[in-house]
């Protein structure tokens, strides 16, 4: 326990607490001096909370030591390229480390923690939805300064945003762990920036959760003004949290692009990079640029609330629809940030388990870039009913439909990869296959939303909710689990239990089909999104009950996963060799991966996925890889 309180993680949280109080106190002091009110419903006034939240983040970063090297540089003091690793075992992961593998795992674990929290929120509000009439989130309930209705909205909105942040962190986790290994690099291009990108996400998550106890907010994850301009203080913490998480995403993406351009090993030309690297680049291009716009849009609402700046206030000549444009300019491409790495994982693992080359490697690589680029010009398909200029509807319908083409190329190529293979189906492959089918359902439910006239019916119903749970689960959650099962032995030298892995899969997949198909069904019949209660006359009670049960089963399967995950770290079956018989360079050296990755540099001498071509080789180590364990 004492050791825990000495970690950078605990220190950071402590300083964030101090910083928040200091910042809030400062504003309160100033307000007192100016004769303004100093307390409010949630003790501090809104400006005090905002500055407090902001200073808290700075204090977290200062306090946990993730920026100290930069301060040294600014004072003209040089620091060694890598720090000596002072800690071992679990402690390593709670301290600031510059090793991309440690950071990758840190990201992943935080992502899993957030998925649990977000999932728990979903289970709470799903319980309320299990039957019509308000059961426990009633108007008389008073919790965290909110009544039940408000709490429903807060939980629902936080569910959305926490899940999205957890995806961003999960994506960063896999990319961080895997990309340098695939490239043969010792680390990312900017290890300190990498550590910073991770650590800034921790106070961001704290801020998001703080919004729950500061009166919550009732805007959905999209935070449209004018509603968000009137919501309780909680919405400010939400904005600030997303803003901060955005920086994590932006800087992480910058690092990935620089790493791929600058850190490839000898012989690794663009067309010989493992396919996952292409996906990582496409994702990063979006995250690097578009993310700024969600930060900006939330910042503008924040300022509207704090300083009365009327960007989106029609009474002052502002325009509420402008917000939606700025917001979706990020938030649409963002959905491709979620899926591209997931689809990359699918493309990366399929050849390994089909024992066949990846069909149409270049087409798949280009389709990732294609999706990313087209994704930049489709944002207004979320706004067909918003009252924007109606001549914008058609071009956005056309551009949106176009995304189906590069996505289709991926699907067809995957199927062709499986064709005539010698397919094995251990747990990671099961999740890959599940991901393909679920994402297919999600993807195919996209075009009906894209054709304007059908969207007029579907918009803001559970059909959309079903659509995006499908795309997100198929494009991210399933591949994420596949990646965890697949690279687990690389990180730990042990493998996860197959039996429980299969239980996880066979429990989650059918429940998930039921969940989303049920959502789409009631959506079509008139179930609106974001409602705490529904008209019993609509006759949705049975379906909703089934949905709730399915939700619980998914939660249970995730719980089983957690049990398997943590148990296998210590007790899993030893697996230090090339468990999956892969050609990829990271599997040519013993597991767990040594501290500075490859003891000998390698040279790329062939194609990455030439399974079935006798005598072919992808990489060649300049000296035979040492087979010693560390």
């Amino acid at each position, binding site marked *: 326990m004492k050791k825990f309180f000495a970690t950078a993680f605990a220190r950071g949280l402590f300083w964030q607490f101090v910083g928040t109080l200091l910042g809030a106190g400062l504003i309160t002091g100033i307000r007192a001096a100016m004769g303004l009110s100093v307390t409010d419903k949630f003790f501090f006034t809104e400006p005090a909370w905002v500055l407090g939240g902001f200073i808290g983040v700075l204090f977290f970063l200062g306090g946990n030591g993730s920026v100290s090297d930069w301060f040294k540089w600014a004072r003209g003091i040089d620091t060694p390229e890598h720090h000596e690793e002072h800690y071992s075992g679990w402690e390593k992961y709670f301290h600031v480390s510059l090793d991309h593998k440690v950071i990758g795992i840190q990201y992943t674990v935080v992502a899993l923690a957030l998925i649990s929290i977000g999932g728990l929120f979903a289970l709470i509000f799903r319980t309320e939805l299990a039957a019509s009439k308000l059961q426990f989130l009633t108007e008389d309930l008073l919790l965290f300064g909110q009544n039940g209705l408000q709490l429903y909205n807060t939980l629902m909105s936080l569910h959305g945003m926490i899940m999205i942040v957890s995806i961003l962190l999960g994506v960063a986790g896999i990319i961080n762990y895997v990309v340098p290994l695939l490239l043969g690099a010792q680390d990312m291009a900017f290890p300190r920036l990498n550590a910073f990108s991770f650590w800034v996400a921790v106070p961001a998550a704290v801020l998001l959760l703080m919004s729950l106890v500061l009166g919550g907010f*009732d805007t959905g994850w999209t935070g449209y003004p004018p509603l968000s301009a009137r919501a309780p203080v909680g919405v400010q913490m939400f904005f600030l949290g997303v803003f901060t998480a955005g920086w994590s995403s932006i800087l992480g993406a910058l690092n990935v692009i620089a790493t791929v351009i600058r850190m490839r090993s000898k012989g690794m030309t663009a067309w010989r990079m493992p396919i996952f690297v292409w996906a990582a680049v496409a994702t990063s291009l979006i995250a690097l640029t578009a993310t700024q716009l969600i930060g900006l849009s939330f910042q503008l609402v924040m300022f509207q609330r704090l300083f009365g700046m009327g960007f989106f206030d029609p009474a002052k000549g502002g325009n509420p629809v402008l917000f939606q444009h700025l917001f979706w300019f990020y938030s649409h491409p963002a959905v491709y940030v979620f899926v591209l790495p997931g689809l990359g994982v699918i493309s990366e693992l399929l050849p390994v388990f089909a024992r066949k080359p990846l069909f149409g490697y270049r*087409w798949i690589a280009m389709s990732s870039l294609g999706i990313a680029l087209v994704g930049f010009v489709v944002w207004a398909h979320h706004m067909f009913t918003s009252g924007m200029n109606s001549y914008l509807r058609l071009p956005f319908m056309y551009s949106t439909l176009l995304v189906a083409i590069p996505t289709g190329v991926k699907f067809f190529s995957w199927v062709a990869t499986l064709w005539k293979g010698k397919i094995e189906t251990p747990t990671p492959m099961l999740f890959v296959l599940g991901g393909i089918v679920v994402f297919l359902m999600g993807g195919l439910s996209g075009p009906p939303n894209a054709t304007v*006239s*059908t969207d007029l019916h579907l918009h*803001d119903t559970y059909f959309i909710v079903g659509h995006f749970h499908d795309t997100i689960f198929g494009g991210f959650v399933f591949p994420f689990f596949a990646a965890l099962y697949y690279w687990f032995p690389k990180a730990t030298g042990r493998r996860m239990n197959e039996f429980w892995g299969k239980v996880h899969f066979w429990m989650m997949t059918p429940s998930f089909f039921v969940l989303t198909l049920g959502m789409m069904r009631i959506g079509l019949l008139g179930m609106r999104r974001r409602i705490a209660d529904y008209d019993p006359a609509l006759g949705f009670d049975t379906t909703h009950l089934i949905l709730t049960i399915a939700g619980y089963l998914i939660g249970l399967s995730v719980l089983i996963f957690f049990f398997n995950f943590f148990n296998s770290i210590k007790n899993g079956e030893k697996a230090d060799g090339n468990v999956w018989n892969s050609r990829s360079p990271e599997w040519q050296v013993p597991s767990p991966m040594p501290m500075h990755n490859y003891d000998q540099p390698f040279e790329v001498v062939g194609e990455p996925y030439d399974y079935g071509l006798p005598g072919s080789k992808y990489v060649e180590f300049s000296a035979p890889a040492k087979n010693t364990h560390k």
Partner: protein
Amino acid sequence: MQHFVIVGILIVIMSILTYFGLDAAGLAKQMHPVSASAQAVSIDWLWDWQVIAMSSLFALIFVPLVYSLVVFRRRKGETGDGEHIEGNTTLEITWTVLPLFAVLAFAYMGAYSLGETNRVDPEAIEIKVRAQQFTWTFEYPEYGFVSTELHLPVNQQVVLKMESADVIHSFWVPEFRVKQDVVPGRVTDYRITPTLVGNYKVRCAELCGMSHYKMENPVVVDTQADYDVWIAEQQANAAAAQTPEGQGQLLTVKYGCIGCHSVDGSKLVGPSWLGIYGSTREFADGTSAVADDAYITQSIREPLAHEVLGFSPSTMPPFTLTDEEIANIIAYLKTLK
């Protein structure tokens, strides 16, 4: 070759099964809420094509995937790799171009269907809609009355001129299919031609705060005769309500007060008005006051002035009403005993 024939047949079977499966599960045409407007026709038409396309594309991928899993699985004791096939440019081009045609077809059908839903009838009846947390009010400018129910004559196009008093709402009657946001600071149009007599509900489809889920008002499609009767009734009511109380009651409809305040003692987002006038109001800070004219006037103009125990003052927007209007409302409140 044999593989391809089998897969081809299976794809066809699977497409059909998927389509009817979806239909049975309520995802296709059959179980839509009943279609009650001319606009719904072209939307349902497009939707049906979408489901057909979805079903066959799903089968197109799903069948060869499962087929490969079964037929090309690694059997016990088998070693070695699959066939070394790197790719095939012709195939890649084929499955880029064919979906492109599908996309073009849907783009065309989408544009056509949208055009149908937007078709303008110059004779359309105009009705003003006012959305606010958490109720709808409908004003019939031709006849000079307001109502919380929307009545529409069948087979006659209406255009709703919609305005919001506070945040964004969205006008949606599922049976009409079409949906349109109501945005503060601008007037949005909603064009519909009801075709089926019946009782429906407008359900607000854009999250607009705490009681968004309750923001539903009745929508009635009448035969022309019933419609005329209803109009006459409403006009008569409006004429009868020339007393201050009557005017006050109409105002509480017009400004949507009754979206938050009940008159029967039940608790909505705001305190009930039953017996409010002259009663002692208790505030969250422990003080209290008697609800007289001044108090009620202040409550309407500056809701933030006091926090009634158990309610959140920022919920109610400040209303800038004239003195006369307020006097009428007070007169009405006095009648609620």
